[in-house]
């Protein structure tokens, strides 16, 4: 306890509330309120409606939602595989090799997402591989962006892993593949699911790289939110944004349930 006087504590709390509520709580509430209304010309929105939602779960919007979900799941699975593989390989290498591999896989975090989009667009619009205009170019860009985060969280988990378990298994005669599959990966499972959730959330909300290269028949939800708000349909845009947030949260919730189950093992 830092502040012992009663008034001091109340001052600290009200300062917190004054900063926290308008900056962090209000934005989300405002989007939620706007998604249920048709006008906002006074202090509060007016014209309550659910029409934006009935529109948001139909046609173009529904397709955008499934597009986002498919993209995010594919990108997360591939990123998790590649990132975990790289983290495991890096941990087995010496210190120098590990540093090189970690630096390579961390690079996409530092490179702006727009540039990742531009690079993928430039690379796959020319031979030998022509993917421009297909869904694969979007999925590749998302995979690149989230692989770094998968790699980062899995290697952090590997660092915390007690080496005694695998040493014990190996000393009892387990082959390396058996140690990996039956000892290491189960121990890593909580971190793997956490990494999967992170990758999924990032990919669901990805806009910067996507606007550089999405084809008309593969429009993820964030792009649709942008085009809606850009043409002035702010209320439709916020309903789509709420759908996006809800879908992300539901999947994160499901993923965290897997995690709690695994960590009791």
């Amino acid at each position, binding site marked *: *306890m*830092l*502040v*012992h006087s009663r008034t*001091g504590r109340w001052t600290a*709390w009200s300062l*917190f509330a004054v900063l926290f509520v308008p*900056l*962090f*709580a209000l934005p989300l509430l405002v*989007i939620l309120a706007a998604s249920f209304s048709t006008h*906002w010309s*006074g*202090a*509060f*929105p007016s014209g309550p409606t659910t029409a934006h939602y009935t529109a948001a779960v139909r046609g173009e919007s529904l397709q955008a939602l499934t597009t986002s979900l498919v993209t995010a799941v594919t990108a997360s699975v591939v990123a998790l595989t*590649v990132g975990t*593989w*790289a983290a495991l390989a890096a941990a*087995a*290498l*010496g*210190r120098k*090799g590990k540093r090189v*591999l970690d630096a390579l896989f961390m*690079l996409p975090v*530092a*490179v*702006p*997402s*727009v*540039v990742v989009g*531009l*690079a*993928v667009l*430039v690379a796959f619009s020319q031979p030998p591989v022509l993917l421009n205009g297909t869904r694969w170019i979007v999925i*590749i860009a998302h*995979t690149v962006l989230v692989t770094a985060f998968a790699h980062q969280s899995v290697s952090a988990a590997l*660092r915390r*892993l*007690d*080496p*005694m378990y695998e040493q014990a298994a190996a000393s009892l005669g387990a082959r390396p593949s058996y140690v990996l599959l039956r000892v290491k990966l189960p121990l890593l499972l909580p971190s793997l699911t956490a990494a999967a959730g*992170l990758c999924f*959330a*990032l990919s*669901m*909300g*990805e*806009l*910067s790289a996507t*606007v*550089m290269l999405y084809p008309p028949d593969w429009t993820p939800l*964030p792009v649709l*939110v942008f085009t809606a*708000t850009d043409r002035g349909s702010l209320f439709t*845009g916020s309903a789509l*944004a709420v759908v996006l947030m809800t879908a992300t*949260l539901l999947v*994160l919730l499901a993923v965290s349930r897997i995690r709690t189950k695994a960590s009791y093992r």
Partner: protein
Amino acid sequence: MASPGTGLLERRRAPGAVPTRSDPADRVPATVWPWALPPVAVLAVVFLYPLALVVRESLAPGAYAEVLSSPSFRDALLTTVWLAVASTAGCLVLGFVLALVIAFVPFPGGKAVSKFIDVFLSFPSFLITLALLFLYGTVGMANGIWTDATGDPTGPFRFLGTPWGVLLAEITYFTPFVMRPLLAAFSQMETAQLEAASSLGARPSRIVRQVILPEALPALAAGGSLVLVMCLNEFGIVLFTGAKGVTTLPMLVHSKAILESDYAAACVVAVVNVALSVGLYVLYRGVSRRAGA
């Protein structure tokens, strides 16, 4: 060190010897190397090769000279850097104050607030700009209240299309990225130090300055440099303000490539942006490694 390390090897080590991490350290069997190849090959095809192509494209004759001498590029560079620096400073101050209250002036619901911050991090950045449009846009809450109160049909809040709107959005969105490492650092702090300082008569402001701040510096440095890099690369927030007056480097990459189809120029801007962010990121890794994060 995170691992409990009670193995025989650990115990036999001479006192004072620095234990190395997970210790396959220096001798790597030759069979290990090939295992690193598949992920690196994937990364090379989908990321390193495309990046190399961007660099090659940027080397088109005259591209650098033309872009670097154009006023729009210099404006964008300046805007990007000052917005990123100002946002980072704002996030550090705000994040420090908020984390301080959560950690040291605990209140019921503090746990829920930390949870909320975690959730906040998983939302895309452009949502903040969207929300600000309803809060401070030409039609929206703040201007609506003004109109209701004064009868003046246009409210005084019209900063959203200016860099100040972007600044507000970036501070809002990135502050949680500073708070998380800070809260982690605060949770490991000895409260005995605080109690001792306060029982010796130090006022809260002095405890913050002389006890808490020095302990928080590594976390502040790590969080701050991460936010700086992310602000330099931020695109969604700027795109959503729809402001023609605010052009940052990522916006310039997008407009050159998609709107003007001038790929050589886009690649030049991209290379400059990558150099800036990767340089800072290397700095961040150094800082956070020293901070033990």
